[in-house]
């Protein structure tokens, strides 16, 4: 009994049964998958010191105890940030709370922006094909199983073949209440030559709520599709967060993802990109502001499965206080993925003597005609740059803030949209001014 408890924490078979009972009528295959996922979750061990996939991670901070499945929230702290959206979904504690429907004729052209519950019934084929279809490869099999078992509602976005949407589609997920556990999910399927931008935001009711967030997303870009995904993680500073993102890129498709990590006490983010057909391109970007005693643990995998594919990863972390970051990235090039072009770069800006940045870049190349580079650097604020700004009357703190923004700009500049660029900047700024 003690053993079972330590493996499942608060997520006992009884709690799982309650969760299943709370669901609306859903297809049997999905419920069966959830039951199988729960069994995997309950039997898999917690990460151990000896697991290479958890090297440098704070394992004592990983706890599943003390959380409960939340009740519906009466309201959300959601406030618009002034970006025009093609459609918007707001989730609170795993339930769809509000929705702004598709602008213009998009619905008529077959675009779907709605709840996963609805899609499991109305778009069953697409959901079955893509929902959590990629196996977890980066160490979080237990947490991925937990996510699948307890996933309630989430976002389903489908852009049919040839449809291009200029304004971003917004998905907002809130965890509201102390000790609540949430399992947000966003599934995006872009048809052939479709184009869209999805902006996802994760936030809490207030900054003192101890919460557990176990989220995931699936991005699927069919031939020639262009998908931009921006994730902004701003959970409570007492939250424990696991996020597992999976991207599949088909022929001549292009996916750009940018994850901004601001919140949580301890946040692990796993990102898997599979380049499955010639011409596929995945650009993986991340910005992290780690402060006080936060830990951000980022694990990435770029898998080149076909020739003439490209991936470009740039993860930048700014560390303050006694914060800690871990970056572990691997590029895998399959034997027949000739002419692969793969980059991986992790840059850390150390704003404090006590902060700690760990980098574990890696390559696994089985083809012989490829171009792969990887690198990791850690640097401090350049005292000459700091003096230069100070000599113009800018106080040291503001000077360091400007230099940190300068450091991040290389990543933000990769975004094609200026309003998004500015919104992300503003979000980072609020963290600096806290």
């Amino acid at each position, binding site marked *: 009994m003690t053993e079972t408890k330590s493996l499942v924490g608060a997520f006992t078979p009884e709690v799982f049964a309650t969760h299943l009972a709370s669901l609306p009528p859903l297809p049997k295959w999905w419920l069966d998958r959830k039951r199988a996922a729960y069994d995997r979750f309950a039997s898999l061990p917690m990460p151990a010191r000896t697991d290479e996939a958890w090297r440098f991670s704070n394992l004592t901070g990983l706890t599943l105890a003390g959380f409960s499945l939340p009740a519906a929230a009466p309201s959300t702290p959601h406030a618009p940030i002034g970006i025009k959206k093609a459609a918007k979904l707001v989730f609170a504690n795993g339930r769809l709370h509000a929705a702004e429907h598709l602008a213009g004729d998009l619905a008529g052209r077959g675009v779907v922006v709605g709840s996963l519950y609805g899609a499991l019934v109305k778009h069953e084929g697409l959901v079955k094909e893509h929902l959590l279809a990629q196996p977890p490869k980066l160490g979080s099999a237990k947490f991925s199983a937990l996510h699948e078992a307890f996933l309630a509602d989430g976002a389903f976005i489908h852009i049919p073949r040839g449809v291009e949407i200029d304004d971003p589609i917004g998905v907002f997920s809130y965890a509201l209440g102390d000790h609540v556990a949430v399992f947000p999910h966003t599934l995006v399927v872009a048809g052939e030559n479709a184009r869209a931008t999805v902006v996802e935001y994760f936030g809490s009711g207030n900054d003192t709520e101890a919460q557990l967030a176990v989220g995931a997303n699936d991005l699927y870009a069919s031939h020639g599709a262009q998908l931009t995904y921006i994730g902004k993680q701003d959970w409570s500073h007492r939250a424990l967060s696991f996020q597992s993102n999976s991207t599949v890129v088909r022929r001549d498709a292009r996916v750009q993802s940018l994850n901004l990590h601001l919140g949580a006490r301890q946040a692990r983010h796993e990102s898997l990109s599979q380049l499955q057909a010639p011409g596929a391109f995945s650009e993986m970007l991340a910005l992290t502001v780690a402060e006080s005693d936060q830990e951000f643990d980022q694990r990435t995998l770029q898998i080149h499965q076909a020739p003439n594919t490209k991936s470009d990863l740039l993860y930048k972390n700014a560390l303050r206080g006694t914060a800690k970051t871990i970056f572990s990235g691997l590029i895998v090039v399959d034997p027949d993925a000739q002419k692969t072009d793969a980059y991986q770069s992790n840059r850390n800006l150390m704003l404090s003597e006590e902060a700690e940045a760990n980098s574990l870049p890696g390559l696994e190349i089985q083809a012989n005609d490829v171009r792969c580079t990887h690198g990791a650097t850690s640097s401090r604020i350049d005292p000459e740059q700091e003096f230069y700004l100070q000599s113009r009357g800018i106080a040291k703190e503001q000077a360091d803030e*400007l230099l940190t923004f300068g450091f991040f700009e290389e990543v933000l500049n990769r975004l094609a949209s200026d309003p998004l660029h500015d919104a992300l900047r503003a979000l980072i700024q609020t963290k600096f001014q806290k």
Partner: protein
Amino acid sequence: MSSLVIRDLHVAIGEKKIVKGFSLTIKSGEVHAIMGPNGTGKSTLAKAIAGHPDYTITGGDVLLDGQSILEQEADERARAGLFLAFQYPSEIPGVSIANFLRAAVQARMAEGEEIDATAYYKRLYSKMDLLKIDRKFTSRSVNDGFSGGEKKRCEILQMAMLEPKFALMDETDSGLDIDALRIVADGVNTMRGPNLGVLMITHYQRLLDYIVPDYVHVMWDGRIVKSGDKSLALELEAKGYDWVKKELALATA
């Protein structure tokens, strides 16, 4: 009327003594040129006055309008009215000139007071027009990949925006071709007036053809050894620094 008084200043880098008893008073409206061979402490003097943390003041004082500034951080000194035009301005990737200058202007405002963006840009553009700087300049990162001339023009633009009481110009002419030098000198001359005092550090007399100083001082081994008007610069040009060296040897013999 403002004054910058440098009184018997001694500056060291680590254990090495560089400036050894430098004294000079500059008043608003005056342009002083400091000339001297390499390694005589000219740049050290400018950076120490501006508050660079690598330089230790071991003696003397610097007073701006009667108040010692030596206890102040570099940013406080700047807000009090000092401006250092760098010999080698730092490159700051990712920080646009517009945002940088905005932060500098904001830093001079009272707490809680917000910059008026429209008025700020209006003023910035008028200064740029005055200095014949293309407006596209403002979206570029500060000095990032700039030519030597662009860097110096960027310094002058900052000076024009921040309107200091005293400007310390460290080898403003270095790395400039004659056209760039002319543009930079025009900029300084435009700003010249009763509200600005200038300490211009230079190795060559050439700059002084374009920015004509009221006073010329020769610096040698960490202090001023000879002062005069602009004719001193011409004399130096003709006779070389060896002339000063010989005079010094005679005086101390």
